């Protein structure tokens, strides 16, 4: 039997066809020479006219804006029949012009950003109903930043979020939400990332273009539902999905460009270096200068300087390529929606070696309305990356390496296979040249991550009760291969045998969530009640082995089994299996959208700790003042909400403890034969949950018809039972105990203003600022806990920030002999002019370690971001800026002089050294640099880390409605991006952006310039 189309479906088609027919007739007869259209634009609800609304003829760049009375006049050509009418705060409307020449167009006020849906744990809510601090960043803002790391795009955009780039390609950024609330070293500082319901420690496997939105959850009221790992904050990530009843949309987004090192430290050149060496008074240094002149000749410019002037940073840096290509397809019918994508990212490092990162991602998500009571869906993200890590040591080697050493030295006949120069040949202790390590060592990591999930959602009572069961699995395989090829550069600096280390690790994590949600409205009372369980099973396995002496050519022979020797000590394995079980629930209630109440509770069980269960409640409340009579429909204040929350959070990133006595197996040769023994441990760590209590007070406000938005938050976060290392007397054993208390507090303010000036011109300006105060409250009665190294002490003292830099305070430089003679400290310590003068903090007339004070913290006390946007016709411009203040950086590169005098230094230090009365009141003399007195940890080594940076500048041009080969040209945008083109700071290094504040081998953050192309059809 022949199937015929049902009438219902035929009618719309027929109508459309008819319309087209009519239009084409009209075109020829009536509008042959174009026609003039007039109209008036008004608010659909109030009928107020809207002045300044944009009226654009679709498919062209022709447009006008409405006058003060809301009226407009425009001319349509024969082929044109649609107007696009838009106005800020209203939904854009397309009007097909029929026979009527005088139009009345009504615009509907936009469902405001306050109605936007926010993802919260195990559910969603609307912005206006929130009682907590959540900031959401959309995909469009993320993809502006050319980076492998999605979090990098958030830098400066979210108040209270600190993102520190770790420059090497593929290295994940350090992310801190509202400071750190645990003791460094015992815990992982990263927030919890929840990607489509699955928990991750980092999201370095995701391409920014895989993501729809990132929500940063900041306060306890939002976090507590994730109880278990929420103490460092939670970042919720939704990958792209399709929409029901949406036509298929295919898009390509791509960019390519170059990265250049910026703010490269200027090092002392050969002449400055020689001056410093001769001034040092060290015979050995003078000898080295002489040896360099003998070996490499004398400079023709200055015959007392060797004829070599190597700029080591220049040698090890290179411009590096970055590119990204992604394809996404999304859409849906009435019963199913889908989204699939593929993307490729590749980035070279700016370090001149095999240092690069490549990633290929595949992604698919589908949701199916199987019946009216059952929705089933699933999601797979597959990420396949290869990372060649940098030899990080090169960054400080290039700092120390003397400029009178060349990269290559044909006289170095001992060197093989490449004639790299060796500083030992000119009398230095070390070989210095970074190139052997850059050339002969590689560290390759293959990273495969799969995230898969499957869910079933049962609609038990329509629009009221749903039950959702979802199962998530993430599987990570890391395959690391470290190769050290043999080389010799003479003088005992050699790696005589090839060496391969391979480590294979897998992480297999499962989460099974079951959630029941009930929504009910009784008159003005609105309830949402949720209850659920979550079961977690995290497994990790690692095997490592090493081989020495394998054939080095070709690369296919780089296997352990091809090695001559397989050392037993190189074999190791490890693993864990941890289980967790949680019960949780939430009640969200609002009365007449005026009074909001919010409560969640989570009970978490973990196999990791001796005290298995932790309980995490939270309460939040909000009051929407603009719903009250006295503020309702206020012309200035469009929305005003006061909110407050309190809650408790858990932190299970703290390392697991055995809670039992354990033994170590040890091996040692006696009489040349290896014996096995055991050493049993008699100290016992027993842990329970680290508990963080947070109170947050905030205001959410919108002014001037939502042109101006403002969010203000104040928080106090106190980590109780903070797990801290407690030293056991007389041993190096440090047991960890829940015995500390750490406090973080601060203000966060976000403001933004957006306006449309004319139909073509609109702009936005936004900013955020946050303060942070980190303070140790208690350390189990210990006055302090030392950290850092003995030479560069960091100390966590009660009442001070965690791991504060701790040392002496420089108050000047002794300028002349009479100043020395007048100072008993100088006499006792045998000081000379050019030595540092320290402050006698305790006033006992002696300068010793008791005169050390806190020199500052690596946490910025103030961070801020500024975002500007401008659209003019088809052009758009965006500028993001970011800055921080109040953090200190330990210039550990300068500090290296403590161990090895005679090495190179930055030009600033060389030029501004003390070299005679009045030449410097902060830098010691060249001789002084080598003196123990001046090498004590002091603020000579600890510098101001404040900086301001132009984070990202993007200019885009949109090509719309052009014809190509007779068809419609797809929606296309071409953009130029300068990422981090300019950073301003006082610090003497590449960048003061150092995650832990210690700059020894920090990978410099490059400036990136790219050209991008987006095509959508």
């Amino acid at each position, binding site marked *: 039997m022949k199937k015929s189309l049902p009438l219902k479906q035929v009618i719309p088609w027929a109508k459309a066809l008819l319309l087209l027919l009519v239009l084409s007739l009209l075109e020829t007869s009536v509008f042959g020479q174009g026609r003039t259209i007039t109209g008036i634009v008004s608010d659909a609800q109030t009928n107020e006219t809207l002045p300044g609304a944009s009226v654009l003829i679709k498919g062209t760049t022709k447009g006008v804006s409405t006058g003060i009375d809301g009226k407009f006049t425009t001319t349509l050509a024969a082929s044109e029949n649609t107007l696009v009418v838009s106005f800020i705060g209203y939904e854009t409307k397309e009007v097909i012009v029929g026979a009527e020449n005088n139009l009345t167009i009504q615009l509907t006020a936009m469902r405001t950003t306050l109605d936007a849906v926010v993802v919260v744990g195990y559910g969603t809510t609307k912005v206006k109903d929130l009682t907590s601090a959540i900031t959401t960043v959309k995909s469009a803002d993320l993809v502006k930043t050319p980076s492998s790391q999605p979090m990098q795009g958030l830098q400066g955009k979210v108040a209270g979020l600190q993102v520190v780039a770790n420059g090497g390609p593929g290295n994940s950024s350090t992310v801190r939400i509202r400071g750190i609330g645990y003791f460094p070293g015992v815990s992982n500082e990263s927030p919890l990332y929840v990607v489509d319901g699955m928990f991750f420690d980092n999201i370095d496997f995701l391409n920014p273009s895989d993501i729809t939105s990132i929500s940063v959850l900041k306060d306890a009221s939002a976090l507590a539902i994730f109880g278990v790992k929420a103490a460092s904050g939670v970042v919720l990530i939704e990958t792209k999905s399709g929409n029901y009843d949406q036509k298929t949309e295919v898009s390509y987004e791509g960019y390519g460009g170059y990265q250049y090192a910026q703010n490269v430290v200027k090092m002392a050149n050969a002449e400055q270096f020689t001056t410093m060496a001769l001034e040092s008074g*060290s*015979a*050995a240094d003078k*000898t080295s200068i002489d040896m360099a002149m003998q070996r490499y000749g004398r400079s023709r410019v200055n015959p007392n300087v060797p004829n070599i002037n190597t700029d080591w940073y220049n040698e090890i840096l290179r411009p590096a390529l970055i590119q990204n290509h992604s394809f996404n397809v999304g859409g849906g019918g009435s019963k199913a929606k889908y989204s699939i994508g593929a993307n490729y990212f590749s980035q070279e490092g700016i370090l001149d070696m095999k240092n690069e990162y490549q990633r290929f991602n595949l992604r698919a998500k589908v949701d199916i309305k199987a*019946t009216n009571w059952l929705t089933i869906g699933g999601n797979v993200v597959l990420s396949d990356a290869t990372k060649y890590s940098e030899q990080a040591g090169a960054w400080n080697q290039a700092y120390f390496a003397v400029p009178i050493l060349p990269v290559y030295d044909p006289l170095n006949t*001992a060197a093989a296979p490449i004639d790299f120069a060796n500083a030992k040949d000119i*009398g230095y202790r070390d070989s210095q040249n970074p190139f052997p390590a850059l050339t002969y060592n590689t560290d390759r990591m293959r990273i495969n991550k799969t995230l898969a999930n499957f869910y079933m959602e*049962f609609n*038990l009572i329509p629009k009221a009760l749903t*039950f959702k*069961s979802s199962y998530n699995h993430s599987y990570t395989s890391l395959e690391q291969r470290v190769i050290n090829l043999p080389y*010799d550069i003479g003088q*005992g600096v050699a790696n005589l045998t090839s060496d391969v280390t391979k480590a294979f690790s897998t992480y297999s994590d499962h989460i099974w969530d*079951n959630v029941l949600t009930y929504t009910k409205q009784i008159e003005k009372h609105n309830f949402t009640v949720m209850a659920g*369980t979550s*079961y977690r099973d995290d497994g990790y396995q690692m095997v490592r082995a090493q081989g*020495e002496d394998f054939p080095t050519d070709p690369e296919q022979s780089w296997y352990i089994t091809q090695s*001559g*020797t*397989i*050392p037993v000590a190189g074999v190791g394995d490890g*693993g*864990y*299996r941890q*289980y*967790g079980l949680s019960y949780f629930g939430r009640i969200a209630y609002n009365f007449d959208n005026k009074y909001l109440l919010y409560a969640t509770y989570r009970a978490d069980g973990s196999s990791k700790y001796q005290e*298995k269960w932790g309980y995490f409640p939270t309460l939040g409340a909000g009051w929407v003042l603009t719903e009250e009579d006295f503020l309702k429909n206020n012309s200035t204040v469009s929305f005003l909400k006061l909110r407050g929350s309190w809650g408790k959070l858990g932190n299970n990133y703290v390392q697991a403890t*055995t*809670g*039992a*006595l*354990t*033994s*170590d*197996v*040890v091996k*040692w*040769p*006696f*009489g*040349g034969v*290896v*014996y096995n*023994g*055991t*050493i*049993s441990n*008699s*100290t016992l760590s027993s842990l329970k949950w680290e508990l963080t209590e947070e109170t947050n007070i905030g205001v959410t406000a919108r002014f001037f018809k939502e042109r101006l938005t403002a969010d203000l938050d104040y928080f106090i976060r106190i980590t109780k039972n903070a797990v801290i290392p407690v030293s056991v*007397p*007389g*041993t190096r054993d440090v047991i960890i105990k829940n015995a500390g208390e750490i406090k973080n507090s601060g203000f966060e303010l976000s403001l933004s203003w957006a306006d449309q000036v004319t139909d073509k011109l609109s702009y936005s300006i936004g900013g955020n600022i946050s303060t942070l105060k980190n303070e140790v409250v208690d350390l189990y009665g210990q006055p302090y806990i030392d950290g850092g*190294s*003995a030479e560069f002490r960091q100390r966590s003292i009660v009442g001070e920030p965690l791991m504060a830099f701790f040392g002496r305070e420089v108050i000047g430089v002794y300028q002349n002999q009479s100043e020395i003679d007048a100072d008993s400290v100088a006499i006792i310590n045998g000081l000379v002019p050019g030595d540092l003068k320290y402050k006698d903090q305790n006033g006992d007339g002696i300068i*010793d*370690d008791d005169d050390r004070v806190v020199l500052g913290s690596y946490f910025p006390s103030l961070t801020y971001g500024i975002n500007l946007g401008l659209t003019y016709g088809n052009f758009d411009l965006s500028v993001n800026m970011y800055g921080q203040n109040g953090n200190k950086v330990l210039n550990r590169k300068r500090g290296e002089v403590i*161990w090895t*005098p*005679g090495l190179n230094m930055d030009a600033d230090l060389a030029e501004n050294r003390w070299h005679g009365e009045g030449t410097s009141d902060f830098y010691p003399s060249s001789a002084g640099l080598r003196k*123990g007195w001046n090498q004590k940890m002091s603020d000579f080594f600890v510098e101001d880390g404040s900086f301001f940076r132009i984070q990202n500048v993007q200019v885009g041009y949109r090509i719309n409605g052009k014809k190509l080969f007779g068809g419609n040209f797809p929606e296309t945008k071409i953009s130029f991006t300068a990422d981090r083109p300019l950073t301003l700071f006082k610090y003497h290094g590449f960048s003061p952006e150092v995650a832990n504040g210690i700059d020894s081998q920090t990978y410099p953050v490059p400036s990136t310039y790219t050209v991008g192309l987006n095509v959508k059809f």
Partner: protein
Amino acid sequence: MKRKSIFIQFAILAISLLVASGCEKKLDELAENQTYTSGTDYTKTSDMIKPLIGIYVKLSATEWENYPLISVRGDDVNAGGLGDQQDFSETDKFKYNKDYWMYNSVWQNHYIKITNSNSAIEQILKYKEFASNKALADQYIAEVKVLRGYWLLQLSRIWGAIPIPMDPDPTTLYVAPLSTKDEVMQHISDQIDEALPFLVDLRPNERTDIPGGVTKHTALAVKALVNLELKNYQKVADATGEIIKSSKFTLEPDFYNLFKIKGKLNNENLLEMQYSDLGSGTGDNYSYLYAFFGPEGWTPKVAGAGGGWGFFEPSIKYIKFMLNRGEVTRLQTSVLFTDRGIAEIKKDPAYLNLPSWISKTTPSGDVLNDYARAMFASGKHYLPSELLTPGRTDYGTNQNMICIRYAEVLLMYAEALTQNASGSAGSADDAVNAVRNRAGLSSISGVTNAQVMDEKFAELAMEWGTRFYDMVRLGKTEELSYEGRSFATDKTFLPYPQAQVDLLPILKQN
């Protein structure tokens, strides 16, 4: 139909919740990849040796900083390493910094070894319950006690009064009293007396179960060392006399090579830390960080051999002392020269004409180049490059470090006798001359205590701070005040490490 689907849904829901709560017992799973002491099978008594081996590993696998801090303060040696580890150099000059990391580290290292020893004794006792050969358990425990005593000796010589850990659990230190140095020494001596009946009467290198392990003679030597500290010279004479009379030990005729490969498990050794590259140029290497002692710049006979950090510089005072005595063998063995060092000696007109053998080239053909950090290097911590196993390049690797040797036993015996103790193992002359003759010096007779002390200086320089502790014991502060230093008795002990004072209030009183 609809009712049925709701029923199915609720069934799924109920099952999900049930399964989830069934998962609760998973929370009690033990952590993976651990050896649980509670899981040890003490009936497997063949494993009883393992805790003992563990303690021997603690002896050899020692942290590099222990030896430097124990040994640096005497007039035989200077810190060297100029420009690096400033506070180490200050310590050598008797300017102490309680915050210096090395003090705390050495304190911790020794306390760890001692609490590990206490723990090992506890473990062995658990095996003993099931052991058929209970005497063997007693012997193992006795061996641990001797090593524990040796470490306590080091601690108390550095810091004087210390708390003695008596329990495997270090937190008991919170309530431990402070024992004076004499009390610590007496405690060690008593512990050794307890141990002696159970120890084997062998030379350490005669042991086949653990080559180089502690024997009765090692115990006696440690007993002599602690009684020397107590100036209990009769006990010193008794203990050393017993070792001498056993006739088990001989002086290695080749003094130079005693501190090289030949010294490994030598008949002269009573206690040594053992290292090995297992005879192979690649693969596992159990090594001490000799680079600390090595010359910073050198041209090794075997190209590619690595140099060192230039610390631990024999003093000019010692060199001149040896030159005055006409010593060749012992000076050549103990000191490596550089041209800069030789020039420095010659600045003293009395030493303008040095023996021709004094040169920057070692007897084994390695050449020291001038380097900034020191003028001389310790020859007793030097392994000639030609003795390295081909393929190995780390300075000094594969060399053992001797802790107590027979020459010291002989000289302690002589010292005790010249301090009016009576001995039954021959005369002080016999003991001193045995040592002198081996070093190529002629015999002397009627030795005085001063001569014995000189002999100890010559023989044991650069070894374990023996010289410093001897001079302190005899109150010869003038000897230690040399080359610009000024020693006073209040500088005998290092200040307690600040980190430990913070932990143990009892240390504050001092």
